[in-house]
């Protein structure tokens, strides 16, 4: 179909005020599907999704871009993921004599030199010190002695500094122990989760000690609670913590992993909410990738991952035809991206001009079955309904129906919002109109969210409801504006009467003054 033959959509001017209203209206929807999508889109296979996990393909460098979908989504691919290497057995906690009220280690080390004093001070401020977890719990030795030859002797069980491989076991010896953790109400599955992560698997299979271990994220002597804003693992600090390695091109170079995820995430709706607005409810890297069990979500998992936060939207999506497709199922990231999730809007329906259609976008040319070519959605400008749905197709008309219904409701909502602003600017109390537009907003959000069902009738019904409510709110606001106009007109009449009275009084006064002068 030529561009001319294609049904035209009426252009709409988006003013800043309309944009604000649209943002407000779509905010909850954004808080639906678009929240929590920081997943690596090329995630059918976890090894491929990380740009070639070192565990599976060291040095491999697929053309993965962190902010875009790049791999072909093939549900069958998930079954090709390499089996996990089992976690090593949990070591037993390091045995040592009880320290009692003394701590010979700190007594000496705090006086050795500045570095040792800093270590001692860091430990004393840590969560471990508060829980009576002392030096010997990680290093062994006899904490009762203040003699180096006794306290740090091999006879006393002194182990020195655990190496990076040993570190996970040292931490796990307590943190995977249900009895030890019981008083603190802490989970004990971190150890198992760590070994299932891409970090742990790489450590287990290739003994790659460059991967993250416990102390890289939690610190060693200065371990703090996750709820401590100074902790590196405090939710607001997590993106920068991950970026400290993953944005380091030199460090990531052996693994072929892109290093722009943090930069892209920081510009996303999620990143702005977390990093700029300091909203700890917003997702960080760990929200989608996991923390101890860090790995990129696979295509078969992505809907559930996003659905952890966007529960209602997930339910709507699962009612859709999209969710029923096997070979060509668009997932959350197909339309919304991964690290670069942006504020959704009507732009997601169509390209400004018809795109170049290629059969291979949606079809496997070898057997003519449906299959989504994810590369077509790498660019945000191509994450549109008409990337797949051709203007000649019946579904395209349905999409247009959905877009028109929603556009009408959004237009009515914006118009009502502007009228209410006008009335408020005139000093009018607009409480009733604001109640009306709040109801319209609820219906509009429902209509916007219903787009995930791909059902035209549902979206149309909800949009009509939103439009009616918005029109009612607008009518109330217009009445306020009209009343304000009447007041101003009445004011002029009253002022004229006052002016006449003043003139009358001044005339009398002058007459009296003349009489007074005459006397």
């Amino acid at each position, binding site marked *: 179909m030529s561009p001319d033959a294609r049904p035209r959509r009426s252009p709409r001017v988006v003013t800043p005020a309309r944009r604000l209203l649209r943002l407000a209206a779509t905010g909850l929807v954004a808080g639906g599907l678009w929240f929590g999508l920081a997943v690596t889109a090329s995630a059918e296979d976890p090894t491929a999704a990380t740009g070639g996990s070192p565990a599976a393909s060291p040095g491999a460098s697929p053309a993965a871009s962190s902010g875009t979908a790049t791999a072909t989504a093939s549900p069958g691919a998930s079954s090709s993921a390499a089996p996990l290497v089992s976690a090593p057995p949990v070591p037993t906690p390091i045995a040592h004599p009880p320290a009692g009220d003394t701590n010979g280690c700190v007594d000496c080390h705090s006086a050795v030199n500045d570095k040792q004093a800093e270590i001692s001070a860091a430990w004393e401020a840590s969560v471990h010190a508060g829980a009576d977890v002392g030096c010997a719990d990680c290093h062994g030795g006899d904490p009762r002695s203040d003699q180096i030859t006794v306290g740090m002797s091999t006879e006393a069980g002194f182990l020195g500094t655990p190496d990076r491989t040993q570190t996970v076991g040292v931490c796990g010896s307590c943190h995977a122990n249900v009895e030890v953790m019981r008083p603190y109400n802490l989970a004990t599955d971190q150890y198992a989760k760590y070994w299932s992560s891409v970090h742990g698997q790489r450590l287990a299979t290739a003994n790659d000690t460059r991967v993250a271990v416990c102390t890289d994220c939690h610190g060693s002597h200065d371990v703090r609670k996750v709820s401590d804003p100074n902790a590196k693992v405090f939710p607001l600090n997590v993106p920068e913590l991950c970026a400290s390695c993953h944005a380091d091109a030199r460090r990531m170079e052996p693994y072929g992993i892109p290093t722009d995820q943090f930069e892209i995430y920081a510009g996303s709706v999620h990143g702005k909410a977390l990093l700029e607005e300091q909203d700890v409810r917003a997702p960080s890297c760990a929200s989608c990738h996991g923390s101890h069990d860090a790995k990129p979500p696979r295509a078969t998992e992505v809907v559930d991952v996003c659905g952890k936060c966007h529960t209602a939207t997930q339910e709507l999506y699962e009612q859709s035809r999209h969710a029923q497709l096997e070979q060509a199922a668009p997932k959350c990231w197909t339309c919304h991206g991964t690290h670069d999730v942006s504020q959704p809007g009507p732009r997601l329906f169509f390209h400004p001009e018809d795109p170049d259609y290629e059969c291979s976008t949606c079809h496997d040319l070898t057997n003519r079955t449906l299959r989504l070519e994810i590369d077509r959605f790498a660019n945000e400008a191509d994450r549109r309904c008409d990337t797949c749905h051709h203007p000649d197709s019946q579904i395209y008309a349905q999409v247009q129906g959905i877009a028109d219904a929603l556009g009408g409701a959004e237009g009515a909502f914006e118009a009502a919002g502007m009228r209410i602003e006008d009335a408020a600017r005139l*000093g*009018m*109390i607009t*409480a*009733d109109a604001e109640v009306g537009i709040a109801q319209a907003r609820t219906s509009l959000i429902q209509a916007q969210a219903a787009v995930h069902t791909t059902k035209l009738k549902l979206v149309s019904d909800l949009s009509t409801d939103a439009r009616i409510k918005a029109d009612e709110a607008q009518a109330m606001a217009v009445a306020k504006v009209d009343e304000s106009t009447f*007041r*101003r007109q*009445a*004011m002029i009449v*009253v*002022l004229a009467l*006052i*002016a006449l*009275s*003043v003139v009358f*009084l*001044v005339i*009398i*006064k002058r007459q*009296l*003054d003349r009489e*007074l002068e005459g006397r």
Partner: protein
Amino acid sequence: MATGQTAGGSRRTTRWLDDRTRLAPVLAAMVHVRIPMTARTWYFGGIALFLFGIQVVTGTLLALYYKPTPEAAYESVQFITSDVSFGWLIRSVHHWAANLMILFVVLHLLRVFFQAAYKYPREVTWVVGCGLLLLTLGFGFTGYLLPWDQRAYWATVVGTEIAGGVPVIGDSLLLLLRGGSDVSGATMSRFFGIHVLVLPLALGGMLALHLVLVHQLGLANPKKPEPRVRTADNDDEPLRPFFPHYILDELVAWYILLAVLVVLASLYPATLEEPANILDAGHPKPEWYYLAVYEMLKFLPKDIGILAPIVGLGVVIVWPFLDRSPEVLARRRKVVVGGATLIVLALVFLTWRGYVA
């Protein structure tokens, strides 16, 4: 012919009334006085009186619909503003007249100060006038809470906190004002009671005394001091009738103020913010006439910042007894006039700073 009949009827009615009240001599004594030709009042005091009258009328009308409980106050104000016929006008006029009343009472005080009209024999008139200023500020403070919206609530929280900072009696004062540890329904009850009962009665009484004193002592001559003993030499200043000449001027000023009120109420009607929310301190700022004190607290230690305005007010009240010089011309009172000007400018600056902060 008809006019003559009307005038005759009016005279008969007046005579009938006077036969039964004997008030004609009192009224004549009140109205038919003479004032110095040189007197320049700028009508500030009369305007403040006019605004008080407006407040009594509009306040009474508002009280017909207002419900003084935290649960109902906000909605009743919303109802008055949105649904009651001309409710918006009455509430807006009450709002603006309250602000203008404070402004004109202060302007009146400044006029009297700079013209040295507080000096013999008007010292008591000055003290009573200062009392009227305090009562007017009390009206503003107690009335501000009544809409029970965010601005009202948090301005009252801040205002009562400042009062609570007064050394020695602060805690008791805070408890007395709030009727508890927080601004609550108890605070609203007492503020409403004080606003519509205590203050109007007190202000009405003091105002009557003030006017009687003004009537008895007459208007001050800003050109020369009042003689202790009147003689033929010092009693020759030209006079003019208070009624109807001065009253007509005053009436014109009232009309102009009425026009100002109509414009303000029409173009900038009294608004209403979100209902008071004790969890969201959205507007921790007092009303404009307390901003100078509020701002002063940012620069001075708390005790000094709170004591300074109290001591300052005390000095203002007793000023006629401190300034014993008979001189009235500003050019011969350079230190006093200069110092007062600086203080006024400082207060205006602090108010402006507080407003834009």
